[in-house]
């Protein structure tokens, strides 16, 4: 027999919310309760930061791993479908573009589609690349359909994610986890005890005096990072230089007009505003740099740009962008805001939680928490955060706006070398700097760079030798196939009402 070292028997999760309950749900789905005890401590007095949450398609994998039915999940969370994000006023005021899920067009002869499009643009200067994305075309018409598997069908090009109520999602996952043996303890954690030799966390003490012992602790305590930051002293790597926003004001409003199958992000004077449609209302948030605009002005601007009457008072959230130098130290792993935060411009918050959990599962350690395993976890997570960071910084850096101090700063700030290289390469001849396992793939980079007017100076010589007529013909037929397909789709609202409408707001 392979020598199986002492196994983890007791896992404690400190903090509920999306991070805590996603962790509890994933672990409880894998680990039989008689083998591993899972305890989650949360206090009803401490609010969670769940607002209308937008996601990227990877969340589908997470739900699938749990074996959750999509319809069930959408009803429970007031969920809607999302085909991408519309960015307004980012490149210049008055401009808009769509960052769709799924590809643009079809690659041919081993050459990336966008290179053909660059060539096409020489004869069609007003062509928008989003008109070659089925997700974008459908989204603009407020339509939705399920993607098809057959790669020959244009319908296989659709990709989708969800918008939903994050608090309802946490509640849904709580029921899931509890059903599978996870135990919830109500109360605040007030003290943490370390082993004097190993420095491992031994117990956490609750306000009631109750002590909870564990082999492994997940810190899901939010920005406070109660265990990893406060107790174990893991430092924070601050990215404020590149991402100067530090505050958000959020409020829900009534939904008016058609049900949109996409998130909208509008750039403002000192930040940006999101609009996330769920079934019965719309979530909104204004994210801004607090040294450049006052809270009062930020709220006023938020309320001005709502689609319908506000529901309740705006809530203020203060945040810090960056991540812990290590996500896993000793026997403690930070998942969620305690591990790091990137503004939700590309809806990556839940994804980063999911990565934290799935990487843990793939590296599942023995109770002695080998250094090699921790190192590998930290290396992988750090890489993910940095890759997402670069993509988000791109939105700020690739702007021509010069109407405020905020945009003047962003436009001229220095950015990480990895990003400079990507932008320079693209601008020269539309070439994409590749990483193998990057979350945001070629079409995403192309959508944002082209959308914000970072256009290549010339086309790649590789497409220069192809027949222009042939390219125009191929692109024309791709486009008409997509237009036809979207014509046949139902509206998002019609589809969702049949598929998974919640009778009551979550």
């Amino acid at each position, binding site marked *: 027999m*392979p020598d199986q070292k002492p196994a983890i028997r007791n896992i404690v999760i400190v903090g509920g919310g999306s991070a805590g309950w996603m962790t509890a749900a994933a672990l409880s789905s894998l680990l039989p309760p008689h083998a591993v005890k899972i305890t989650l401590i949360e206090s009803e007095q401490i609010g969670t930061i769940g607002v209308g949450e937008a996601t990227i398609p990877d969340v589908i994998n997470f739900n699938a791993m749990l074996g959750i039915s999509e319809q069930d999940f959408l009803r429970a969370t007031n969920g809607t479908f999302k085909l991408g994000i519309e960015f307004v006023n980012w490149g210049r005021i008055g401009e808009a573009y769509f960052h769709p899920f799924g590809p643009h067009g079809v690659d041919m002869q081993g050459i990336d589609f966008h290179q053909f499009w660059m060539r096409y643009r020489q004869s069609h200067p007003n062509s928008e690349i989003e008109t070659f994305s089925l997700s974008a075309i459908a989204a603009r018409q407020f339509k939705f359909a399920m993607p098809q598997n057959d790669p020959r069908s244009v319908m296989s090009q659709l990709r989708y994610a969800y918008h939903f109520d994050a608090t309802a999602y946490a509640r849904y996952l709580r029921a899931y986890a509890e059903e599978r043996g996870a135990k919830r303890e109500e109360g605040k954690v007030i003290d943490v005890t370390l082993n004097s030799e190993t420095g491992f966390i031994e117990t956490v003490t609750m306000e009631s005096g109750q002590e909870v012992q564990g082999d492994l602790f997940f810190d899901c305590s939010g920005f406070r990072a109660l265990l990893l930051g406060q107790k174990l002293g893991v430092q924070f790597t601050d990215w404020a230089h590149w991402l100067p926003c530090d505050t958000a004001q959020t409020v829900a409003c009534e939904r008016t007009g058609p049900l949109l199958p996409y998130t909208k992000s509008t750039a403002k004077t000192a930040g940006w505003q999101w609009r996330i449609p769920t079934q019965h209302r719309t979530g909104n948030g204004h994210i801004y740099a607090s040294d450049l605009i006052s809270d009062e002005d930020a709220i006023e601007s938020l309320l001005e740009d709502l689609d319908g009457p506000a529901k309740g008072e705006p809530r203020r959230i203060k945040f810090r962008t960056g991540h812990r130098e290590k996500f896993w130290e000793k026997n403690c792993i930070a998942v969620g805001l305690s591990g790091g935060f990137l503004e939700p411009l590309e809806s990556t918050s839940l994804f980063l939680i999911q990565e934290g959990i799935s990487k843990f599962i*793939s590296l599942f350690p023995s109770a002695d928490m*080998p250094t090699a395993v921790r190192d590998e976890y930290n290396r992988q997570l750090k890489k993910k955060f940095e890759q997402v960071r670069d993509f988000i910084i791109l939105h700020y850096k690739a702007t021509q706006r010069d109407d405020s101090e905020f945009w003047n700063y962003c436009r001229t700030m220095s950015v990480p070398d990895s990003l400079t*290289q990507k932008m320079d390469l693209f601008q*020269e001849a539309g*070439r994409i700097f590749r*990483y193998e396992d990057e979350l945001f793939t070629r079409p995403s980079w192309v959508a944002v760079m082209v959308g914000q007017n970072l256009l290549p*100076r010339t086309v*790649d010589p590789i497409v220069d030798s192809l027949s222009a007529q042939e390219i125009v013909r191929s692109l024309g037929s791709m486009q008409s196939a997509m237009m036809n397909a979207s014509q046949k789709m139902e509206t998002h609202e019609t589809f969702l009402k049949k598929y998974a409408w919640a009778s009551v707001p979550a």
Partner: protein
Amino acid sequence: MQRSEFKIVICGGGLAGLMTALALHGALSSAYQIVLIDEGEDADDDLSYGSVTLPTAYDFLRGLGLDEPVLFSRSNTSFSFGSHYVDWPGTDTDWIQCHHQILPVIGGVPLNHHLTRNQRSLAPLLISGVAARHGKFAHPPNDASNPLSRAEYGYQFSAHQWTRLLAEKVQTSGVSRSASSIETVNTDNGEVISLDLTSGETITADLFIDCTGPARKLLSAVGHSFATIRRISLTHSLKSASQLGPACRRVQASAQGWSAHTFLQDSVHTLMIQKDDKAVDATPYALGALDVAWHNNTVAIGAAASAHDPLTPGPMVMLQRDIERLLDLIPVARTFDMEQREFNRRFQNDVNHTDMFANAFYLNEAPTSSFWSEAASAAQSPDLNRKIVQFESRGILTKFDLEPFNDEDWTVLHHGLGRRVARYDLQVEATARLDIDQQLDGMARAIEQLVGRMPPHHVYVSNMKRYFEKQKYA
């Protein structure tokens, strides 16, 4: 670069120069003028590319006009399901380092974890390895229900014969070719200005490509030095054969080094690698790489840029990647900053990753000769160490960016080298051990039965050639 013509001069008439010329000529419009200074083949230099390719060579060679009818009818090329390593230091059994598609995932858990729990070996589950061991070959079909569809193959080849085929392609392609040699490389401020040729001609260009092998005529002229990691010597011999051997190179280790037998249609080629000790008839060869492969207006491709251990298909995959990387980054103007930076970044990664795979062979306990101890001390690196530690502790395959050798290559290698996984993933316990055993028994049985029905490699190749002949006259 739309207006005036852009001239690219490629120096070197071996595999690297000819492949680069054909690849650029095929991909670029007439706005690019391609000139090949064909210095003639240096047969000894091209030996260092070894004699096997990875499966990715198929598309690459087709792109150059070398499809299978050409390769098999006009040269002694044969198929390669992998390499058979025999008597490798630190191993109890030989193994076939075979090419295989993604390994099965059972119950949501990678195969590897089941093998650990059930204490089974990987080899009987790999169709390409089993077929190679029995001397069998057939093309993998598309039908996913056929176990052979999981196999992948590369080629066993003679560098000399491929050079001849490529030279013929160049002749008919319209690439302008000048059969001459470089006498002087004229430089100014780290740039190549022109080349004086033995023909008396002086040639200028916008971009110079150095395919001169270990001579590195251009890059050394602009001041780039080659960092040697380790010196070896190559000895080769060719013996004619009346019948084609297995679709699998045989690599045998000894106290002084190793030798590889490549089974070609008409012969067996033997390459012997030893320590560089000035042995008679042996060609000394320095393994290592340039610090940068692209400097201003000069780019090195193939062995001129980096020299790799021919123990694995590494040298050929590196040559292929050098050319693909160049195609990805063809300059669009007469400034090269951008291309240079990106090219060198990827080059560095490719060099490290290619070497890492060969290095992984040398970390086992080995004979105490200087060949093995030098190889072992050059093989250490933190990245490789990470891979081994992760595999041995939990069966995890650590991945770096765009590695030429994939997860399956690494899995087969770890198993072949006798690395054992200490702990399996708890998730395997969701499926009963006996059920998995039954499933794996079934897989192995299906493979064995199918291999029994496959033709021997030599029969398959001669039938295939007969078919190609018929097609030609049909």
